[in-house]
C-alpha cells in the first residue's frame, strides 16, 4: 500500500469489518495515531497489531484487546475484558479503568499499565515484560509466571504466585494468601530502586514499600534427583 499520510486517523468500530486488518494496513501506510470510536466492549479489538503507532480506543473493550501485540502502543480510555494483551511480545498497553481475568496472560515482552484493578489470573504464564497494576489483583495472580515483573500497587488475592517459575511479583498492599511454592522476600535496595524507577516512568508515585514474591523452587524439581530413580519403571 502506498503511504497515505501520517495524520491522525479516526475509525468507527460500528463500521468495523476486519477492523484489525484495516489498522495494520494503515500503520504500514504510515499512520502513527489511530483513534477508534465506539468500541462498545467488542471482543478482539487491536489484535495482532504492530508499531510504530498509537491506537486509542475511546471507551471500553471486550476480550483479548491488544492480544499478540507486536509493538503498537494501545490506549484504552475505560475498561477491558478478559485476556488483555495476552501473548504480547512488544509494545505498550494502558488501561484507564479496570481489567477482568487473565490480563497479560503469557505476555513475552512490552509493558502493560492498568490504572484500576485487575481480576483473577493476572500475568498467568507471563514470559517476560512488565505489568503494572495501580489497583489490586484477584486470585491466582502471577500463576506460573516464568519471567518478568508483575507490580501491584494495591492488594493481592488468594493463591498469589502459585507455582512460580522465575518471575517476580511485587505487592505494595496486603496479600490475602500465597500460592503453592511462593514465598515473600525483602527486596534489596537495588531491586526496589529498579521497581520504583519503572513506576516513575509511568507517572506513578513511587513511595511504596514492596513485598517481593518469588518461587521457593520446591516445585521445580521432583524430590528424587538420583538419575537411577528414573529407571525404576
Amino acid at each position, binding site marked *: 500500500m502506498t503511504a497515505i499520510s501520517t495524520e491522525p486517523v479516526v475509525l468507527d468500530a460500528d463500521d468495523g469489518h476486519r477492523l*484489525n*486488518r484495516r489498522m495494520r494496513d494503515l500503520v504500514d501506510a504510515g499512520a502513527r495515531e489511530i483513534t477508534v470510536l465506539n468500541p462498545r466492549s467488542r*471482543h*478482539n479489538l487491536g*489484535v*495482532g497489531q*504492530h508499531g510504530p503507532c498509537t491506537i486509542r480506543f475511546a471507551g471500553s473493550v*471486550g*476480550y*483479548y484487546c491488544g*492480544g*499478540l*501485540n*507486536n509493538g503498537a502502543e494501545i490506549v484504552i480510555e475505560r475498561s477491558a475484558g*478478559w*485476556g488483555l494483551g*495476552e*501473548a504480547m*511480545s512488544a509494545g505498550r498497553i494502558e488501561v484507564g479503568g479496570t481489567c477482568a*481475568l*487473565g490480563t497479560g*496472560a*503469557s505476555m*513475552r515482552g512490552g509493558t502493560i499499565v492498568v490504572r484500576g484493578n485487575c481480576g483473577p*489470573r493476572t500475568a*498467568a*504464564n507471563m*514470559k*517476560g515484560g512488565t505489568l503494572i497494576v495501580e489497583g489490586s489483583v484477584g486470585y491466582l495472580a502471577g*500463576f*506460573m509466571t*516464568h*519471567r518478568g515483573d508483575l507490580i501491584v500497587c494495591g492488594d493481592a488475592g488468594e493463591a498469589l504466585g502459585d*507455582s512460580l*517459575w*522465575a518471575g517476580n511479583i511485587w505487592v505494595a498492599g496486603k496479600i490475602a494468601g500465597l500460592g503453592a511454592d511462593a514465598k515473600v522476600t525483602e527486596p534489596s535496595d537495588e531491586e526496589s530502586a529498579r521497581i520504583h524507577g519503572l513506576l516513575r516512568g509511568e507517572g506513578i508515585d513511587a513511595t511504596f514499600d514492596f513485598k517481593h514474591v518469588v518461587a521457593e523452587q520446591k*516445585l*521445580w*524439581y*521432583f*524430590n*528424587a534427583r538420583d*538419575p537411577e*530413580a*528414573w*529407571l*525404576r*519403571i
Partner: protein
Amino acid sequence: MSDHGYTQGRSHIWTSDTIRDIHAKAELGRYQIRGFSTFRRFPSWDDLVFLPAVMTRLPLEGYREHCETRTVIGGGKPDLVARPLELDIPVYLTSMSFGALGTNAKMALGRGFSRAGSASSTGEGGMLDEERAAATKLIYQMTPSRYGLDLEHLRLADGIEVALGQGAKPGTGGLLLGMKVSEKVAAMRSLPMGVDQRSCVRHPDFLGADDLQVKIEELREATDYQVPIFLKLAACRVEFDVKIAVKTGCDAILLDGTEGATAAAPEYQLDNCGIPLIASIQTARRAIDELGANGKVQLVVSGGIRNGVDIAKCLALGADAVAIGTSALIALGCNSIQYEDDYAKLGTAPGACHHCHTGRCPVGITTQDPELEARLGPDE
C-alpha cells in the same frame, strides 16, 4: 495338593508387579513416570476386519485405477480459512514437542512428511526454526503453557492447533523432566534450565467454550483468516466434548485416544484415564453429523495407529484424517536393534524401551544430548 497359593504368591491383588510398584513409589516419594503409551490391554484394531468390495460394489484395480487420497482440512469455510491445509494423503504427523524430541528428529520428521506431501506439527515447545525450514506444511500447537507463542510464529504456521487435552494423560499438562530441559529447550520455553517442567492444563485466558469461541476469533484476526484452527481433545466424554468443540467454531477436531503416547507421564494416568480411540471415532462422527457440520469441521484421530491398515480402519469408521506419532518414531529407529549396551544401561532392550522420559534415548530421537542426537542423521 493345593497350598492355596501360599508358596507361589498367587494373589490376584498383590501381584509381584504391584508389590514392586509400591516399593518403588515408597522409595521415590512420588508416582512413577515413564514414556511411551499405556501397557493396559484395550480392544485392538486387529479385532476389526474389512469387508472388501465383491458384488454390491466392485473393487478398484490396485495400483492401476486412481484412488483419491487428497485431504483438505479447513476447506468447508472459505470465508474463514483462505489457505485450507491440503494434504496428499489423509495422514500427518501429530504434535510432539521439541524438548520431548531432539532437533534432528524434528527435522527428519518434517522432511519425511513433506516428501509424502503431508504436514507435521510443532508440539508444545514452540516453533523450532529448523523444523519450520524442514516442513513444507507445519501446524503450530498452542498449549495452555503457551511456550514460545508469539505473533510471528503463529503467522508462519499452516494451521493452528489449540490443545485442550492429550490422550495419554487427559486432565493434565505437559511433563518434561530436567534431563531434557537443555539450554536451547529452556530458552524456547522461558524456563530455568534443568527444571522438571510440569505444565499447566488450563489455558490462562479462557475457562470455557464460550470464551474459546472468542479466542478462536482472536487467532483468526491475528493471522488474518488464513489457516484452519484445530482443537485437540483427549477421548473422554466424546459425544458432548465434540459437540461443544464444533460450537466453538473450530475448523477441525483432533481426537486423541487413550492409546496415544507421550514422552513422559505419570503411569497411573497412562493406564487409567480416557477411552480407546477404537471406541470413540463413531461417536465423534455422529456428534459432528448431528450438528450438520459434516464437511465443515473435519475429524482427525490419533492414538496407537500402527500402520496403513489401522489408518484405513479409522477412515472407515468415520475419520477424515489420521495423525500418527509413535509409528513415525519407530520408522525413524525407535527401539531398533543397535546400541544395545545403552539400552541395557536403561534397564531395557530394543523392542521394549519406553524410556523417552530419561532423555537417554539410545537411538538419538527423544534426547537433547548432543552425542546421542548425533546418532540420528536428519538426512538419512
